[in-house]
């Protein structure tokens, strides 16, 4: 017992010592003792709340005079609220930013650059994947470093596979195998109302990855639409086929009961999804022991879309010093490790992936880490937020069988090119 207490004392002494070091030589402005006041921190993930509280506690050990108030908002209203706040100069001091909105905010002087933080060593960009860090640069100015790396996988329900007598997918399975597996499960268990697959009819969780796997693209390298490439419509066809086969619920069914609900309640055996959006849901399910993540199928190549969120500071923050100190702390190893250990999402910081994988040892989280090797950047064109919403209306018609995948790709091509031009 005494040993334990001593161990904790030593360990916390080391942590505190480290923290003190990184604070003294790392902070932008000056001594942590001189930074004080209140800041707000807006995000949308209730699953991360306990983790963020722990991170804020750790931050306050270093900066005792700063109070951080976390504000969690529903994702559905996050961006409308943020834009309204930006219009009235009342943005939160620190907030989450994604890749599709980054350019809008950075390009309109809403974000504080972090070049000073990098210069002073408070943030070390070499600790994050280069291609993601570069994304948060605009005209040579760095505004943030990635806080996480998100990739996709297919969740499978092992118990349903066993009941259907269907072998678990091999790591290098193809989209044809995927379709056949889905059908085999539907054939075996359909009389119990169980489907092979349930999916979100959206790009990032579902069809962008299959578009990439068939060699297509959403946004081509020159910033115009990539939907005219032949692989793009093949990638859409995958999901239209599943619905046409009857091995997936229809679009109305998937609209009224979401894919995660079908999967978590044992009504669908496979569920492709984004790691950060699904791990917490899957891990919290009563029958989580049945679930495991397997790699996405491949076609002409193996591919998943990848995305990173980031913490940014409002350019008009009333307490810029405290906000940037917190931003730097969030980007540091300690905070990144706490986030990885929560198992909600893979942290971007070098060397934290083991902590993430070990957070839920039986869920196969290594799949999300391995997927980084075959990941394709999140498609971004100007005005992204506007065309993504229109995209799902057109793809929805293709999945429902109202138009062919080729016709959908043609419409998407026109729509995206117009959206890019209009900005």
């Amino acid at each position, binding site marked *: 017992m005494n040993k334990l207490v001593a161990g904790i004392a030593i360990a916390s002494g080391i942590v505190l010592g480290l923290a003190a070091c990184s604070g003294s030589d790392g902070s932008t402005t000056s001594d942590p003792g001189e930074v004080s006041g209140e800041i707000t921190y807006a995000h949308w993930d209730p699953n991360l709340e306990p983790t963020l509280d722990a991170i804020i506690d750790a931050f306050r050990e270093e900066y005792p005079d700063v109070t951080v108030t976390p504000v969690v908002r529903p994702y*559905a209203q996050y*961006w*409308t609220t943020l*834009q*309204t706040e*930006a*219009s*009235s100069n009342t943005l939160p001091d620190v907030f989450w930013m994604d890749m599709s909105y980054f350019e*809008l905010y950075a390009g*309109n002087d*809403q974000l504080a650059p972090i070049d000073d933080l990098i210069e002073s060593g408070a943030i070390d960009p070499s600790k994050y994947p280069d291609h993601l860090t570069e994304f948060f640069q605009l005209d040579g100015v760095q505004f943030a470093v990635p806080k996480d790396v998100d990739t996709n996988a297919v969740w499978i329900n092992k118990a349903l596979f066993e009941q259907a007598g269907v072998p678990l997918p091999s790591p290098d399975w193809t989209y044809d195998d995927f379709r056949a597996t889905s059908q085999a499960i539907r054939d075996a268990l359909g009389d119990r109302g169980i489907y092979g697959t349930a999916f979100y*009819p959206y790009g990032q969780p579902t069809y962008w990855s299959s578009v990439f796997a068939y060699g297509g693209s959403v946004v081509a390298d020159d910033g115009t639409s990539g939907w005219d490439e032949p692989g793009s419509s093949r990638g859409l066809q995958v999901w239209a086929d599943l619905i046409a086969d009857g091995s997936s*619920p229809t*679009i*109305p*069914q998937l*609209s*009224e*009961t979401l894919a995660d609900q079908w999967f978590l309640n044992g009504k669908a055996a496979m569920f492709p999804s984004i790691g950060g959006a699904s791990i917490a849901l899957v891990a919290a399910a009563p029958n989580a022991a049945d679930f495991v993540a397997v790699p996405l199928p491949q076609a002409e190549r193996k591919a998943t879309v990848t995305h990173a969120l980031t913490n940014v500071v409002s350019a008009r923050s009333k307490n810029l010093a405290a906000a940037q100190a917190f931003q730097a702390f969030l980007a540091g190893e300690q905070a990144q490790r706490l986030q990885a250990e929560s198992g909600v999402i893979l942290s971007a910081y070098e060397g934290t992936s083991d902590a993430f994988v070990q957070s839920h040892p039986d869920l196969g989280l290594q799949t999300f880490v391995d997927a980084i090797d075959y990941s394709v950047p999140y498609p971004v064109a100007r005005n992204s937020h*506007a065309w993504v*919403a229109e995209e*799902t*209306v057109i793809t*929805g018609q293709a999945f429902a069988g109202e138009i062919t995948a080729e016709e959908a790709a043609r419409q998407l091509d026109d729509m995206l090119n117009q959206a890019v031009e209009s900005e």
Partner: protein
Amino acid sequence: MSLATHDRPPATTGTVAGRAGAPNPGSRRRRSDSGWWPLLFAGPFFLGIAVFYLFPIVQTAYFSFTDWGPFGGVTFVGGENWRSLLSDDEFLRALFNTVVYVLVVLLGVPIAVGLATLLNRPTLRGTMVYRTMFFLPYLAMPVAIALVWRLMFNGDFGVINAFLGLFGIDGPYWLSTPGFALVAVAIVGLWMAVGFNIIILSAGLRSIPPELYEAASLDGASRWSQFVRITVPLLTPSIFFVVVMNVIGGFQLFDLLFAILGNNPVIADTKSLVYLFYDESFVLNNRGYGAAIAFVILLIVAIVTAIQFRLQRRWVHYA
């Protein structure tokens, strides 16, 4: 309205009489005093109206001629928003949807008249219990109501389709089939409004003199003809009020629609005028265009209400 005009003449004559009866030469000053006092008392109210209603209306009218940058910054663009509004299919669609919604909700008025009459029967026991039951939906949060109804309407696992299934009816996907989705939302809106309507109509029923019913039954009038010949005509002022309120409320449809269909792809076909306003102003950030839509909503509600007030002379009987 005409009740008010009936009230006014005696009051005016009173003032005129008072003035005429005042012999002293200071009457002119007294008159200007009595002109200012009421204004002073009404001042706080008019100030509130001016700051929170009139000024925003004027501002909205101005903004409808402007274009907004992504984070504010207004540029004057003349009639551009209004031109695109008139040729916008989405706007016409939203107008159509809103009118359909209002019409379905208005079906609740005859239902409420029937229920209020039943609840007002002197022999009925537990009137308060029924009244509370019918009024509760009006008090509950629309979002909470929406979530529960969304579960009930669910095509695969909802209680409504399970119930229809008992009779061998294969229920539709209420919330994801374009036509059905709007009707489903309107049914919820109707259900919420019925409680409010019943309370208003009950008050109206109580003001009908019981002697009329006594006389009618002595003359041998059946219950039904008493209802049609006495209750309904004498209830028309309350019915008129309820219809006006329901129409205004219906044109403002947003929260129910947002909470029931907000994340369903069917919303693309099912937007109401206010939903379209929200979508354009806050999701797509076309605030100038949004202002034009908001102004049109105001105009439509004002015109429809004005028409109702004109038409009431033909069918509303004030006792």
